[in-house]
């Protein structure tokens, strides 16, 4: 007594049941999502990872949490733009699904963004992402300009106004260093503070500058090391000679490497501009993974930075930032 219409209904219902079964209990229609491993490459501008110790800790924590296979790559020659570009292409060819790059300089950042050969998401470190031809990118950076301003204000507050400020620049000038210097100068210049710029040409270059404070004339000065390498080198010179130290009214710098912090702890460095490198590492990897999943997601993150002196070093608010638990 079943009508044709009813028969069709029963057949349709049976078919739906079969499809539901196949969908829910087999991999024929819906494939079980496998834990995906995201290969991500980090290419820094330096030839060592000394400045990236805390960054790597954050990066590794994110890698464990987000299932990322991170390759951390340093340059053979620090600040070599072409080499960095080649490495980026090589990493892309070798399967990196996202690149985290700390560009050698601002022009390099633009070159990366303009390079059509780079098809994977790009996260820039220490450099603001500039939209080029609708290319979506992200950046994780710090307010280096603000940091420079803050240091400038500290110098103005702590140091006699007549003392000149010696700026010890790195061998190349990255975006971070440029912004930091701009910020510093935006305070010192209007205040009429004399500033002298010295670029590290070769090893021992800064020692000669410090020696020049003692001989031939006698002059006191404030030194600001614009990068960590310069800071550690200068701190080493001052540590070795109490004479030189007496002519340096204050050594300031930027960085969170353990060497820099030890020099601050010893009192050789007067003040330090610090950054939350652990968070930068964590967020850069997290952003890279997000961009792999959603290539249209852009992100521009400015992280915490600050200025500390020796007595701040073991304060609770700074301790984990400077000495991440790894």
């Amino acid at each position, binding site marked *: 007594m079943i009508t044709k219409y009813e028969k069709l209904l029963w057949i349709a219902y049976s078919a739906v*049941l079969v499809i*539901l079964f196949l969908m829910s*209990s087999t991999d024929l229609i*819906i494939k079980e999502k496998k834990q995906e491993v995201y290969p991500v490459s980090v290419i820094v501008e330096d030839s060592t990872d000394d400045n990236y110790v805390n960054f790597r800790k954050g990066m590794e924590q994110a890698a464990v949490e987000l299932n990322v296979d991170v390759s951390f790559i340093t340059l053979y020659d620090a600040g070599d733009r072409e080499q960095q570009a080649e490495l980026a292409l090589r990493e892309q060819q070798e399967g990196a699904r996202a690149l985290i790059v700390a560009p050698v300089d601002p022009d390099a950042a633009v070159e990366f963004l303009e390079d059509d050969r780079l098809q994977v998401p790009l996260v820039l470190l220490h450099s603001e992402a500039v939209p080029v031809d609708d290319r979506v990118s992200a950046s994780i950076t710090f307010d280096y300009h603000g940091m420079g301003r803050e240091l400038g204000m500290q110098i103005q507050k702590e140091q006699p106004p007549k003392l000149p400020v010696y700026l010890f620049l790195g061998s190349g000038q990255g975006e971070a260093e440029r912004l930091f210097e701009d910020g510093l100068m935006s305070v010192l210049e209007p205040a009429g503070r004399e500033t002298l710029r010295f670029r590290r040409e070769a090893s021992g270059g800064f020692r000669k500058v410090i020696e020049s404070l003692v001989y031939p004339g006698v002059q006191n000065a404030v030194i600001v090391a614009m990068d960590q390498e310069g800071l550690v080198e200068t701190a080493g010179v001052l540590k070795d000679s109490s004479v030189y130290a007496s002519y340096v009214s204050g050594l300031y710098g930027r960085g969170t490497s353990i060497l820099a912090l030890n020099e601050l702890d010893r009192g050789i460095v007067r003040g330090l501009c610090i950054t939350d490198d652990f968070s930068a590492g964590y967020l850069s990897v997290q952003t890279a993974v997000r961009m792999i999943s959603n290539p249209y997601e852009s992100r521009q993150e400015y992280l915490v930075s600050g200025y500390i002196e020796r007595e701040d*070093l073991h304060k609770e608010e700074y301790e984990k930032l400077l000495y991440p*638990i790894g």
Partner: protein
Amino acid sequence: MPESRARDLIRDISIRHSIFICFTVSAVVASILVGVSLYGRLADQLARTVQEENQVLMGQVSQSLDSYLRTIMKLSDSLYYGVIKNADLSDGTANGKMTLLYDNNKDSVSNIALLSREGELLEAVPAARLKSGMDVTRETWFVNTLERADNFHFSMPHVQYIFDNSENQYRWVITLSRSVEITQGTATHQGVLLVDISYESLKQLLDNVSLGSGGYLYLASSNGELIYHPKMQLIDAGLEKENNLSAARRRDGNYREKVYGKTCDITVKSVGYTGWKIIGVTPEQRFDLNSLKTKLFLVFVFSFFLYLLALINSFISAKITTPIQKLEKSVNALEAGELDTEVYIGGSYEIQHLGRSIRDMAERIQKLMQDIVAEHESKRKSEFDTLQSQINPHFLYNTLDIIVWMVENEQKQEAVKVVTALARFFRISLSRGRSIIPVRDELEHVRSYLMIQQMRFKNKFTYRIQAEPETLGLASLKLMLQPLVENAIYHGMEFMDGDGEILVEVKLRGGQVEFLIQDNGLGMTAGQVESLLKETPHTHSGRGSGIGVKNVNERIRLYFGEEFGLFIQSEPDEGTAIRILLPAVSWQQVIEQEKK
């Protein structure tokens, strides 16, 4: 409008579908209720089981941690009671013993140091010196230890910075400090024994504990400060959040609370001496069956269950309604007049009873109808019989008057003829009460009648009767021709000027007998012919036998069927021809059938 359409749809729905829908809907509602209640119960059960397991796990972790801390405290005791107390530190033996104890515990201990009340480092293993300018007497842990000399003091995790460290590394430690008595020479002084617990070893102890997918545990001090958390660094940087302050205020047990928008099950367990709390966090959604495939599987199970229910319901509804549908078919046939239809009797008792009732009712209706037909037939028969037996008294009076006239005028021979014809006429009229007589008798009857009428009308018309010999033995209806001939005489001849002629002829035509009664009288218009067959009252002349043309036609159809009967052709002033068609059936055969 749609409401009324829906109402119509509901009204027109079959009993089978009504039963099917009602059963299925009831079953689905019941299933949903049972399912929801079971799901809630199972989810609760699962949550409780997970909580219990977490509680057990947390208990184990708590025991491990307690044991770990007790080991450190025992180390501190060993250092104090075995190495420092009552020993003269100046003789240098203490350092060796301390080194031995340190070596045995160096996986979990970073530094061991003995400090004087003044903050002087008396012993340190591994060998170390205080940082230049470091005044430990201003350190909180140092002050607290000396103030509460009887207690062990556990610090919060921190980077150990009191020692001069030339290495490019730092160590996170938890400092266990206690007040000790130091003997130097003959004097005893109060000092502080420091044991730095390696944070890495504590971390390893807790890192390996997992509370299922998405679950984690952390360690907090009694006032909620984080000691260990898998995302400690991120929480400190503000990239992650934790509800540690409120969780640490709770007593040991299980709680459900919202942690920054996510409902979590929190398990709290205190750790022995320290007052620290191990807090396990399991996000609620981990208990839910929330993967797409699981959801689809639930939909499949529900659909399959519904499918089975629908199948069973379909079977039950068909079982109940099929007999009703069959019975309905029988009733439809009865309604269409097919009273002989066999009424379905089957299904459940009620349906069977209903079927029997309908069958009995149909039988009664059939019987009643047969009775009515029989009664009607009987009534007609008696009416015809009455009609047949009736002789118009006027006809009889006229005939007798003619006979009297003939006897008075001594026309004896003529009178005898008339009387003989009259006698024959009556004899055939009676025919033993039969309705069917042979054609021969019917012709004889009409001949007698015509003879009487011819004498009465003084030979005003002539007549001829012709019949094929093979027709004479066939069956004919009694008194079939006489009313027609009577009509021909009274309406066709009576007022005619010339001589009238009447022809009665019987022929066989293709298995049928054809009677022709033809006159050359006044004829009739079409209207008259029509009224003749209707036999309206004005057609009665009052002089005939009283049996009308219509009556003859009805009788023929009644006996022989609708295809037989009487057909009239007439033209005014031309005459009339009436044809009667009967089946060519042997009279003898009809009589035998009647007998049966």
